[in-house]
């Protein structure tokens, strides 16, 4: 069986943004979710690549909650440090925890700020060749 290529879709929601991610593994799912969030966060503002790297660890009760927890951690960092991670090296990922080395862009002003990853409709399911996750972001 062919493994799923990492991809994401940003889907309309009545008032928020729905993110659908597909990837071959939990590691790649988290990395792809991080890249999708960066696209939303950077939007018009672009940014300046900075050498800063950061190790991020998250844990949760299940794989879907881990996806939300991961995105919420990235949202926290982008708001408090005006730094949007765009590249991810997942050094460890299970269904309930992950350790990631991230590097990213420094911003003067974060545009298109996402406020939170919600638990509404949150899921990570197995699909042929990988995983599919879905999360609604409060924007």
């Amino acid at each position, binding site marked *: 069986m062919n493994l799923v290529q990492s991809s994401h879709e940003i889907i309309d929601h009545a008032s928020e943004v729905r993110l659908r991610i597909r990837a071959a593994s939990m590691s790649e799912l988290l990395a792809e979710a991080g890249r999708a969030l960066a696209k939303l966060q950077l939007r018009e503002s672009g940014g300046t690549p900075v050498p800063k790297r950061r190790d991020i660890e998250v844990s949760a009760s299940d794989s879907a909650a881990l996806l939300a927890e991961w995105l919420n951690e990235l949202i926290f960092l982008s*708001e408090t440090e005006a730094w949007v991670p765009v590249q991810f090296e997942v050094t460890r990922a299970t269904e309930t925890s992950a350790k990631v080395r991230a590097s990213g862009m420094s911003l003067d002003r974060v545009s298109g700020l996402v*406020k939170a990853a919600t*638990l509404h409709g949150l899921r990570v399911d197995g699909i042929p060749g990988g995983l599919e996750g879905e999360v609604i972001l409060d924007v």
Partner: protein
Amino acid sequence: MTTETIRSSYPVRVVSPLVREIPVTSRADMQVPVRIYADDELWSQIASDRSVEQCVNVATLPGVTGHVYAMPDVHEGYGFPVGGVAATRAKDGVISPGGVGYDINCGVRLLGSGLQLDEARAKLEPVVHDLSRSIPSGPGRNPRLDLRAEELDQVLDRGCRFMVECGLAAAEDLETIEAEGSLPGAEARQVSSKAKQRGHHQLGTIGSGNHFVEVQVVDQVFEPDTAEAYGLRQGQLTVLIHTGSRGLGHQVCTDYVRQMDQVMALYRISLPDRQLACAPLESPPGQAYFGAMCAAANFAWANRQAITESARAVFRRAFGDAGRLRVVYDVAHNIAKLEEHGGALLCVHRKGATRAFGPANRETPERYRAVGQPVFIPGSMGTASYVLAGNDAALDLSFGSTCHGAGRAMSRGEAKRARTGAEVRRELEDKGIIVRCPSSGELAEEAPSAYKDVERVVDVVHRAGLARKVVRLRPVGVIKG
């Protein structure tokens, strides 16, 4: 009485031309019926998204009582719909962070000036420009108001009372702020360090999304005596502030949704939507969230107060003493409050819904006891906003609640595909509205066409007896978050 079927397949009982009901028998896990306030046109919009199903999900919360209500501006959210009201019994019911939302105490404050539009017109453009320079918008920080840790804790614990001590509020301002801008149950210690990190430099900022500061003019008076009681008159210049608790509130919600999601099994609670995560109000996690939520609400009131002070400075520079701005009222529309209804203490969740207490309620400010509390329903950017007055009858109709705005009719993506930011800016300027917005994309997302017709929404509120129309406000300057 007739019945209808909607997309979500629940039976709908038509109680009256403006009230529809989803009976409690519609789904096995419902504890109470759902009531929706809408005319036929709004109902067709409401029935086209998932807001009714979300109301039905809310009707399954343990301890929920009476009805779950959907206001005429209701639209699909996550967990609770936006424009939803649900009350749970304080003694054995739950509290749900999702029932308040991420922007805790997002709300609206109206400031009345002593100026008529005609006498201020020549200075309007520089005033709007000065407001946009003085009040940080977008997801930015406030470089002029970075709080030390102990000051932030005081804001969280005491809200606007602390702002008075800091010289950032007049004592009389508190008289016309819901709960005097200071909820007694607030506990700064229940707010995480992450939330405090997000909030400590955000006091006095608008934020992004649909938040704004508008300069408006009273262009129609419906109830002259009540308008006079509120200090409003035809042609008067006003300032409307719409914002909330910023990143601090968002993080409080994130923290406690996660915590409650993890503890629900302990309390044997099972729900159809994970975002409705909750715990008994009287339980340790319920009490911790209540303390943190009240603290975030205090932060939001202090935020609108700090913005008020910035606006006052701008008006003083431009108009001297004539530019004095008085707080007409300040009201939350994302909050859970402990209130007595029908002799029982209830935890009333209002998400995208505004408290609308009448003259007889002791929480209505003293100076408005003859007419009821002011209620603000801002339209979409560039359209009219309304001031209404609370009715005593609304206690039985909606736990004393009404809607909070026009309500979205179009997703953000649809809105951007329909019109560019430049087109929206031109349309507003063609109407004589001065616009300041740093992002064209965000301007397009908040285009008037992306929202329901506020006139229709307000009309339903008025005709249903939830609140009474007092004045209409027309924008002349918009500072978009």
